[in-house]
């Protein structure tokens, strides 16, 4: 299979959608003439013109809300946020408007809206620019939250997202844009609500999403050298959440660890862990281990930031202390 980057996978998904559906358009800051802060939309303005590739003012609250309105009006907007950190200035439009309008109207309105944004820390952008607000949005009924970890999933999940008739937060781990992976030329989609078992093993279940998967694979390799077979699971969508895959894995491994690359407290794994213990307490050999970023604002200094980010060593230490492996 041909290898492409995570970025190229997203570009392909957008290009396809614009090509095949005239109701699809893209708007955001500097996505057109500038080509996009992370170049996901580069070339689209030239190909589809300013009517479908719309540069917006720096007014997140308003172009997010306008995305909801355009969707309610029959279009299929794809809105780019330059960073998920900037979602906060428009949070009301996502949480109170996009997520609630269908319910408040008794089902009269549907909002086929995709909000795309790079997420996560690790690039020394410090406290205000390294946030991972997909963890909060995953808790909002009415929204769906997607976080791919491979080019294959990025393309397949984005195809599903653009076809979906609900407001979707599509969070893209910024550190992965340049990463490569195999992607078939044949059309495929990746459904929501199905975690992917990226590696099978019977000794311990390792759970994360987004750029946490790289850490887990490093850990799994290390464990394998010691003869311990880890099952590595990528949630892929934080909402809907595929608890079944997690539960059945843990029931066979009797050990579990969850990893958040975002801050540990209130990370997506707080919910996953607490649900998992309710469903697997009779099978577990010990407590479910939680590893996540330290509960501090993101520092600029590289060594400090790397130390705040969870490392393979932290995961291994957690496994050691809980299960003596």
């Amino acid at each position, binding site marked *: 299979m041909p290898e492409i980057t995570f970025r190229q996978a997203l570009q392909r998904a957008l290009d396809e959608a614009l090509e095949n559906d005239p109701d699809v358009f893209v708007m955001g800051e500097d996505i057109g003439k500038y080509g996009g802060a992370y170049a996901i939309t580069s070339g689209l303005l030239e190909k589809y013109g300013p009517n479908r590739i719309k540069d917006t*003012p720096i007014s997140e609250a308003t172009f997010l809300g*306008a995305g*909801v*309105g355009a969707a309610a009006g029959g279009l299929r907007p794809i809105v780019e946020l330059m960073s998920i950190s900037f979602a906060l200035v428009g949070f009301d439009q996502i949480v109170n408007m996009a997520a609630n309008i269908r319910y*408040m*109207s008794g*089902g009269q309105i549907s909002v086929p809206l995709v909000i795309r944004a790079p997420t996560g820390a690790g690039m020394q952008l410090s406290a205000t620019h390294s946030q991972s607000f997909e963890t909060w949005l995953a808790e909002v*009924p009415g929204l769906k939250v997607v976080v791919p970890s491979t080019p294959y999933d990025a393309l397949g999940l984005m195809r599903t997202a653009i076809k979906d008739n609900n407001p979707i937060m599509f969070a893209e781990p910024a550190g992965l844009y340049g990463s490569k992976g195999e992607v078939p030329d044949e059309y495929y989609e990746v459904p929501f609500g199905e975690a992917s078992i990226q590696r099978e093993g019977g000794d311990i279940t390792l759970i994360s999403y987004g750029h946490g998967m790289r850490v887990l694979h490093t850990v799994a390799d290390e464990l394998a050298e010691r003869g311990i077979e880890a099952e590595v699971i990528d949630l892929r969508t934080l909402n809907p959440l595929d608890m079944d895959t997690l539960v059945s894995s843990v029931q066979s491994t009797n050990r579990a660890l969850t990893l958040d690359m975002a801050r540990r407290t209130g990370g997506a794994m707080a919910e996953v862990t607490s649900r998992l213990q309710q469903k697997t307490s009779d099978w577990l050999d010990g407590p479910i281990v939680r590893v996540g970023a330290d509960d501090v604002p993101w520092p600029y200094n590289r060594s400090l930031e790397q130390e705040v980010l969870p490392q393979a060593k932290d995961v291994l230490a957690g496994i050691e202390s809980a299960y003596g492996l």
Partner: protein
Amino acid sequence: MKSRGKSKASKASTNGAADKQELLELYRQMYLIREFEEACGENYSKGFIRGFLHLYIGQEAVAAGAISALRPDDYIVTHYRDHGHALARKLDTNRVMAELFGRATGLSKGKGGSMHLFDVAKRFMGGHAIVGGQLPLAAGLALACQYQETDALTLVFFGDGAVNQGTFHETMNLAAVWELPILFFLENNLYGMGSAVDRVRAGGVDFYPAAQSYGVEATVVDGMDVLAVREVTDKAVEQIRSGGGPVFIEAKTFRFQGHSMADPAKYRDRSELEYWEARDPLKTFPKMLTEQSIATDEDLAEIRKAVDEEIIAAVKFAEESPQPSMDEIFTDIYA
């Protein structure tokens, strides 16, 4: 009437019959809104209506005048003080009342309540309770009209208090830059809850000059004069349909009661209220109709009788309607 220029009402005056029907319809709508709101007040006290309830009493001329100028394919977006706009758009009186009662027959099956009235078939897109939150939504609907290359437009209502939200500024700018087919309709009733406009806003009690700073054509109108409102709206609509981009209208009006049922409105003095009550469109407009012998007292009495019955029926309908089933809790979250 001639002086009223291009408004449909006056165009119609070349044709007495049509004109009369239209004028009587405006009266019917205003009276319907007034009586509907009175009924809401009663049923709030009785405990049938709960949560926050914001009455439109005093502002009837704005909804009736502005909305009568629209086409069925135009969108309307408004805030939580939305009953008047809903009724002027001819949303089913029974289903509006049933929504306030939280019944299964309500427009939103009782899930939205007074602040969240929707009827997509009539392109009535809510009813929004976060101050200023409806403005970006309206811009998006206007963008849809433009993108789909129709000449439909979006009319968005908001209050003087909403102007102090950042979304007002951002939406005015976006609409102007993109030349969106949107009509910004400010109902300046001089108070945002207990805050008199001049206590919370720079630049005085007039808003339309500020709107002009976005390069948007802005005008002011007497919100107690339904025909004047209708006339400026006709003009604005014409201009927007012909591709002229956004227009801003400020209507000077007044709510005769408190902000919500919880508010005794102690922050206003009697004299101010009296000044505006003297301009009550439900006194002045019928007076004009009879004085200019456009309608007889009988015509008007007939209208009132029909409306009174409509409202009694609506309350009865709401009261007798079933509560939504518990399963409704989990529906309408995802499409």
